[in-house]
């Protein structure tokens, strides 16, 4: 038996093993990063992870459930402001507990905003969420006593999320590792949601809402709940943005509609139907300004918009989709080499989308 045909025969096992190796590799690299880069970069990594959570929330919502949100900046902001306001008013309050509070708040607001899904389908959610994004900005200005408005608000001098002595880590490294652990936790949680009964129901709704309903899926509950979870992830991201920043400070000017759309760009760049893709997409949107010349920074949103449009036209499944497609192409080539016929590759070569679709029919 040739190596190629062995590989083709063992493909499911190999894919599974490969996936584990991938996750372990990513975690290893993730753990190593703060050792290799200066604090400034580590701060950027924190921002990437925070944005990544918001984009991950969008993946659950848009990629796996077919709903849209143009207002995740608001949920992100709810998380960020919860942390700044609580820690600012009660310095003794543990930082991470504010993350939990922010997550719950974002979840609750997410449920309310997702409610129209009970009655209607389609694009109205875009309208509601866009309105929410702008409304949030107005609220920040209106209640500037609390939020600091466009002036911004930080936490009191001396208050920092700093490393305990026993770790021997620098503050920026400690902040990074805490965030890293939370983000990995959120990734695992999201993966489990996608694989769960609710996740399969969500995908069934995305592919054909009426058919899902006929199959006995509780469409309204699933959609509203997915919206809540999605908003919650964005809320956690917002809180972590504050925690991970060397000078924790938020200002109304950072929570414009552009932020919400930026998350959407991250989602589409990475791939809407993947768990890791949003993090990759977040890296893209956070690091893009670095390659844009300093005096042309104002072009960044133009590029983001153009990238979003271009990707929808040529590669709507993003970076992860591209790699999936090239992987399945490679398997087909391998299968041909092994002379087990090209059909093998075709049959199993499709992305997990089809897989999920079949799963949902069985349940």
């Amino acid at each position, binding site marked *: 038996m040739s190596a190629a045909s062995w590989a083709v025969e063992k493909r499911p096992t190999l894919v599974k093993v490969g996936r584990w190796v991938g996750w372990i590799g990513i975690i290893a690299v993730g753990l190593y990063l703060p050792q290799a880069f200066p604090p400034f970069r580590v701060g950027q990594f924190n921002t990437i992870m925070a944005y990544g959570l918001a984009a991950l929330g969008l993946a659950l919502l848009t990629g796996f459930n077919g709903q*849209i949100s143009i207002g995740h900046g608001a949920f992100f902001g709810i998380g960020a402001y919860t942390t700044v306001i609580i820690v600012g008013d009660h310095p003794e309050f543990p930082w991470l507990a504010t993350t939990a509070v922010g997550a719950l708040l974002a979840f609750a607001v997410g449920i309310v905003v997702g409610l129209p899904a009970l009655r209607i389908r389609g*694009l109205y959610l*875009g309208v509601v969420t866009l309105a929410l994004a*702008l*409304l949030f900005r*107005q609220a920040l200005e209106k209640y500037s006593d609390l939020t600091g408005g466009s002036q911004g608000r930080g936490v009191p001098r001396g208050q920092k999320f700093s490393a305990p002595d026993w770790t021997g880590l620098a503050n920026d490294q400690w902040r990074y590792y805490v965030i890293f652990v939370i983000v990995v936790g959120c990734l695992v949680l999201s993966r489990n949601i996608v694989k769960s009964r609710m996740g399969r129901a969500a995908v069934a709704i995305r592919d054909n809402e009426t058919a899902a309903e006929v199959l006995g899926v509780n469409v309204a509950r699933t959609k509203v709940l997915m919206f809540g979870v999605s908003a919650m992830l964005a809320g956690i991201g917002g809180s972590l943005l504050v925690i991970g920043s060397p000078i924790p400070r938020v200002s109304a000017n950072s929570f414009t509609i552009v932020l919400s759309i930026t998350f959407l760009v991250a989602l589409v760049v990475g791939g809407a139907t993947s768990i890791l893709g949003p993090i990759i997409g977040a890296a893209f949107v956070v690091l893009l300004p670095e390659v844009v010349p300093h005096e042309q920074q104002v072009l960044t949103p*133009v590029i983001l918009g153009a990238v979003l449009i271009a990707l929808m036209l040529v590669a709507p499944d993003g970076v992860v989709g591209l790699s999936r497609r090239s992987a399945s192409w490679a398997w087909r080539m391998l299968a041909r080499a092994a002379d087990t016929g090209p059909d093998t590759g075709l049959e199993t070569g499709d992305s997990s989308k089809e897989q999920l679709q079949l799963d949902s029919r069985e349940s």
Partner: protein
Amino acid sequence: MELFLQRLIDGLAVGAIYASLALGLVIIYRSSGLINFAQGEMAMFTTYLAWMLVDNGLSVWLATSAAMVFGFVLGVLVERLLIAQFSGPKESPLAIVIVTIGLFLFFNGLAPWIWGTEGKSFPNLFGTGSVDLGGVTIKVQTLGIVGVLLAEVVLFYLMFQHTKLGLSLRAVASNRESSRLVGLRVGSILAVGWGIAAMVGALSGTFVASRIDLTQNLMQVVLIYAFAAATLGGFDSPVGAVVGGIIIGVVEQMAQYVDLFDGFTLLPVFLLILVVLLVRPQGLFGRAEVSRV
């Protein structure tokens, strides 16, 4: 009482502006079942073009007309170059909506890149005069805006009901496949629909710019009001867009009486959208949605 009347009339004027933008949204929704999230930003962009013309000495009326022509061309181009690429078997409303969101960001970023971030002032079409009606002072501008909207509505009605173009627009909205079977070139007709939508958007853009500073964010809040107008009136109803726009305009002006809403004008509008969607998702004049498998 006078203040109340004042605000009522102001509400009519801003409502007329929202109605105009909402009409554009409705035209696109009716003909293709899509929501163009870039509608406001496209209007902002054409308003900048009009501002450039005014800055170079053109009259406001001519500049506004030119902006409408730009708008039409822009709408047609967007439909042909981007939206139409998604027609056919891989058509997905979600994908198209994401494209319009990309356009939103694109134009929102492009404007300050070209014209800078500093606000511009756009002269208004009707001068600064005012008339006195039984103790209530009304700006000529206010009357002008309402008048232009009325003319727009009449023209729309005539166009839709009494021209071949209007007939084909209604046909495409009603049944796309049958439209092709009777020989309509659906693609071109949809593009014209987008063109008209962007054209009326351009008009509302110049009106807004005559009231507040012209910046890249000119139309963001206005777009939400237009969405609210279309949602309230029914996304598939041009009449609804106009009535909805007027109601939203008056509500917005009146809400400033209430402390909670002062400086927080989007809250009542946001709540209104939520309530309409939950209680009567088809809006006041829209038809109830028929779900298709």
